[in-house]
């Protein structure tokens, strides 16, 4: 007999070793997330996938599913918390969507749309951050980095390289690259690496592609991220 958990009252089967996120995705249940990617090891840092498991807050992307768990996901209380987390991500960086090449294709923006985030609520930090346009094909705009470490993990686990890392703690946390000079051009990053394409925001961009698709015709302009996410992350979507 299959083992099951319930998410918002719906019975969801799971296999031993699956996280709540993996079980939910396989059952076409969307749990908002930014630092999670099904092909990479979980990191549990963005906290957007926070769910209540038997009354306690857990990160769905790291928490193992276990028989009989009662999980709350799509509730007003949890989505309000998620909206506040997203607002914090916005005010801690410099996210000026109208002037960003990633707008409309940005997961940070799409999650904010999904949560009906209309304002920033908190005072804005306006941190002073740099850009690295040294690489011939890829650029880093540190203003938009949310420290999800997807590029770090993709480089290590998928590309077999070690191009990115997070340095510093707390408010001094920042993305660094593996080169004496500190410049992306002196790393072995290639524009075809997964690490160059996995960024959920506009922090890592492929040069000369930013406006190939006009604003207004982009992914999240017409499709909500809950649907996009399940289509791309669940190989058995809709079955």
């Amino acid at each position, binding site marked *: 007999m299959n083992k099951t958990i319930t998410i918002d009252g719906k019975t969801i089967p799971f296999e031993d070793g699956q996280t709540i996120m993996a079980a939910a995705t396989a059952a076409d249940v969307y749990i908002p997330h930014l630092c999670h990617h099904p092909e990479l090891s979980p990191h549990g840092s963005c906290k957007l996938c926070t769910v209540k498991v038997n009354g306690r807050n857990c990160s769905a992307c790291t928490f193992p599913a276990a028989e009989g768990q009662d999980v709350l996901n799509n509730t007003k209380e949890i989505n309000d918390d998620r909206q506040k987390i997203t607002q914090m991500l*916005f005010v801690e960086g*410099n*996210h*000026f*969507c*109208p*002037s*960003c090449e990633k*707008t*409309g294709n940005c997961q940070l*923006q799409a999650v*904010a*749309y*999904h949560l*009906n985030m*209309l*304002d*920033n*609520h908190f*005072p*804005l930090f*306006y941190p*002073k951050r740099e850009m690295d346009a040294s690489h011939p094909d890829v650029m880093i705009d540190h203003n938009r980095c949310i420290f999800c470490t997807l590029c770090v993990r993709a480089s290590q686990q998928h590309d077999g390289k070690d191009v990115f890392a997070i340095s510093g703690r707390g408010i001094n946390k920042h993305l660094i690259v593996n080169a004496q000079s500190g410049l992306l051009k002196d790393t072995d990053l290639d524009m075809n690496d997964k690490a160059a394409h996995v960024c959920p925001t506009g922090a890592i961009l492929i040069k000369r592609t930013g406006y190939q698709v006009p*604003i207004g015709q982009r992914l999240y*302009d*017409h499709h*909500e991220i809950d649907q996009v996410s399940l289509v791309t992350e669940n190989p058995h979507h809709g079955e």
Partner: protein
Amino acid sequence: MANKIRVATTSLAGCFGCHMSFLDLDERLLQLAELVEFDRSPITDIEHCTNCDIGLIEGGVCNSENVHVLREFRKNCKILVAVGACAINGGLPAMRNFIPLEECLNEAYLEGIGVENPQIPSDIELPLLLDKVRPIHEVVKIDYFLPGCPPSADVFWKFLTDLLEGREPSLPYDLVHYD
């Protein structure tokens, strides 16, 4: 007609794009005019607002005059609305926040290409620049936010008709854009 809803609007550190988008209501402006009258606004040229129901604020706060105008609106409007990206997070004007103000002024008025008779404007009539451009919710209490650069005419319409018909204003997914 008596008892029309009184609306005031202004553009602070904005580009008037949100006002232009508001005018994109086109023929719906005639329907709106049946229900509302405009107080202080670039549309009317009335200089100060008094006893308004709704205040629409475009743009962030970049100088001392912006602060005075914003406070006047808060004092005189029952409902104050942040309209557009700049009012909500400072927007493009806030991209000067990463450059010291003195350097901005030097570049614009002293050292920039094509500057003639270089001097930094210092007339006593000019409002003083703030060191950083700020969103308006950091200065006064804001009741509602309409994101977008600019918010589409449909956003204004949905918001205002919700309010005028006594519903709690809300924006569906396809009306929420930050760009």
